[in-house]
């Protein structure tokens, strides 16, 4: 199996992670996965607005996902879409298992994800960025959340689909994974695939999550060292 851009089947595109890229936010991170660029900002824990959303027993986690108008070839109209609403929901559910929300009753934690350039894998790039941004904000976490999409072409599990691979793959499976906890926090899939092949795809995806995890930790270390100066 030969890939369009010469990668090995289980090789992801070049991944760059940088923590602390925004000044105003309590925490932030930039993730580049190939050409896909996501930036995440975390505000909170802070007071919940509007008040009637306050939860007495734990913090309210809110996620937003937005594509910059110039992030794709066909300009994205500003404002929420059905797609962005769903991605925001699964992103929140992907992150929540990593947090100790019960430590911040009544507060809210907001995660804003902006896609600055879109070239496949925007939701996974957003989750990787959000996870680092949460850590950068000093919010206690059980584990970092890593995320990647995988597929299957020519009977081979393929990691981090890009370009025409999105059309050729038997399935498109984005996953989010907590490497230390060894637990899955997001899994979606579109396609047409036999159960046993699907299992193989999942295993391949989880493997690379460990690599992402290392990159995330490096980014945070660099940030803290930088701060220390």
């Amino acid at each position, binding site marked *: 199996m030969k890939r369009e851009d010469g990668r090995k089947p289980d090789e992801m595109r070049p991944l760059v992670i940088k923590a602390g890229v925004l000044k105003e936010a309590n925490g932030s991170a930039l993730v580049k996965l190939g050409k896909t660029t996501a930036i995440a900002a975390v505000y909170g824990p802070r007071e919940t607005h509007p008040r009637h959303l306050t939860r007495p027993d734990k913090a309210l986690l809110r996620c937003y996902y937005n594509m910059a108008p110039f992030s794709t070839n066909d300009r994205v109209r500003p404002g929420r879409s*059905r*797609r962005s*609403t*769903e991605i*925001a*929901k*699964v992103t929140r*559910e992907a992150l*929540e*298992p990593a947090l100790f929300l019960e430590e911040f009753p009544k507060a809210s934690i907001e995660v804003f994800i902006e896609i600055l350039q879109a070239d496949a894998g925007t939701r996974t790039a957003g989750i990787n960025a959000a996870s680092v941004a949460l850590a950068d904000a000093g919010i206690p976490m059980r584990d970092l959340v890593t995320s990647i999409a995988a597929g299957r072409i020519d009977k081979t599990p393929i990691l981090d689909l890009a370009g025409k691979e999105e059309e050729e793959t038997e*399935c498109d*499976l984005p996953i989010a994974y*907590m490497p230390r*906890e*060894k*637990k*899955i*926090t*997001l*899994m*979606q*899939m*579109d*396609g*047409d*695939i*036999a*159960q046993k092949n*699907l*299992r193989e795809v*999942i*295993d391949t995806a*989880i493997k690379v999550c460990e690599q992402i995890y290392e990159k995330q930790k490096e980014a945070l270390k660099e940030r803290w060292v930088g701060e220390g100066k």
Partner: protein
Amino acid sequence: MIMQSEYIMNLASKGLRIDNRKPEDFREIKLEKGVTGNAEGSARIRMGKTEIMVGIKMGVGVPFPDSLDKGVLIVGAEFSPIASPSFEKGPPREEAIELARVIDRGIRESKAIDLENLCIKKGEKVWMVFIDIHILNHDGNLIDAAGLASIQALLDAKMPEYIEKEEKVNYEKRTKPFPVKFKPVPVTVVKMGESFFIDPSLEEENALGARFTITTMDNGNICAMQKGGVEALKIEEIDRIFDLAVRKAGELRKLLK
């Protein structure tokens, strides 16, 4: 509410359910087709106290630029405020959007509808197919109920006639069968404590940790998945969910007429 959820979790830890069902039991399901006359196809499902109507409407529109010779499929879900006391306070838009999109993906990815067959004039006119999911009573497991009813409504559908000359659709004359090729069926498995249940009631949904929907095709292949809920799952747990969902999908598929 919280008390109730704790009670349900307690039961679940013993593999028991609040309504005495076994973990792998569906509630009673009644599936009817042809339940409303102005839709091209329709179905009503009752799954326990959950009740959903699905209607198929067709119209003529312009194809998407990237598939000029294909019909357009649009799935919508309305959470009518008649269905639940909680529906009118604040919009549960997110839940409704997720429901519609999970059903949409199951149908689209399985190629259940032969969209190529719904082109009238390439690049100019194609059939628009609207699957509208109307929740009448919400007692949990909307995805499975709506998914099954959607396929049933598609199987029930007859295409209206398009009168080329007058550029209009004649809804009085519905004769040609609607091109359904496959019957994708979603099954949702929930994890409660260490137990795995299917067909959660609303009470159970309010208590649950993780929810996992798997849409299975006629040949056993999987065409869509969606994890929900705020609990993380181990890979072995996902294996268990796969087995259960695929097995149960066959049961549901048999109900289709």
